[in-house]
């Protein structure tokens, strides 16, 4: 009886073998092809890191100025405002008083942020 049925986990071993052979055989074939037929032709351009056709100039390690956080804050104020104002406007007529007050408080918070940014001079064009 045991001879008729192979080990129940044998198929996993077979799967592993196939899974290994599937990528390794083409890689070995490619390697053999390069070894026996195709002469390697490296070069300065071919080995270059970037491949967009334009030569890279300057340093890759550039820094953004920390003042960009002001732009991020202002963007957030107007963006979040727009996202919430549109559904607010659509549902305006059917809103209970509580919800209306809640959205007004929310708007007040955003306007407060805007007033702060304005007072700080962030709305001036870049100096």
């Amino acid at each position, binding site marked *: 009886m045991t001879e008729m049925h192979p080990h129940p986990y044998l198929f996993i071993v077979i799967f592993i073998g196939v899974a290994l052979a599937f990528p390794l055989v083409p890689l070995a074939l490619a390697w053999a092809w390069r070894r026996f*037929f195709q*002469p390697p032709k490296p070069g300065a351009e071919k080995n270059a890191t970037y491949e967009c056709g334009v030569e890279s100039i300057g340093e890759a390690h550039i820094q953004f100025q920390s003042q960009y956080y002001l732009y991020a804050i202002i963007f957030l104020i107007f963006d979040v405002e727009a996202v919430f104002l549109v559904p607010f406007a659509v549902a305006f007529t059917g809103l209970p008083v509580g919800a209306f007050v809640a959205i007004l408080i929310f708007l007040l918070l955003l306007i407060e942020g805007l007033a702060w940014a304005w007072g700080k001079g962030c709305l001036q064009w870049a100096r």
Partner: protein
Amino acid sequence: MSEIDEKLRTELQRQGIWVTSMQELYNWGRKNSIWPLQFGLACCAIEMIATAASRYDIARFGGEVFRPSPRQADLMIVAGTVTKKMAPQIVRLYNQMADPKYVIAMGACAISGGPFKQGYNVLKGIDRYIPVDVYIPGCPPRPEALLHAFMELQRKIDGQKLTGTDKAEFLKPEQLSEFPVPKFGEHDLEPPANRDVFQPPKLERV
């Protein structure tokens, strides 16, 4: 393959036995999986896009996989006017392609500058800097013309030999696969043409 008699081969094929050689198998695989570099320069690129789309369907010839990286591309389709500003980039992209690599000059502009030949900013043919395998005339060539050029290229690949003295150029170690990138000069690209590549026929008046 020259060793086997063609009639014997046909007879064997009729019996369901396929005889082939390494060279034939290799070239058959290569010519049916030409991956073009995904870039267009001018109006010819629109025709190239049409060739890749469903009506003309370059996938029937195995060329639908337009690669955005020169490292993965086999074929450069120079589709459109090559300005002098763009020429160094094209040569650099060609240099970065892995061997074997092929070039199709698509349209009058890529061949010779075409209708803009007199322009101060137009390169008078990409073959001044890189070797071109197939030229397609036309302004712009129709998608069928590009397909024809593609088939011509397949024919060329099919005929390339792997061994012997007349083997394909890319298999010869002494054959370089990079070409000098032209620089921006005061009035023109420096040099205006790569003389090792660009050898136009001389007109002789009699």
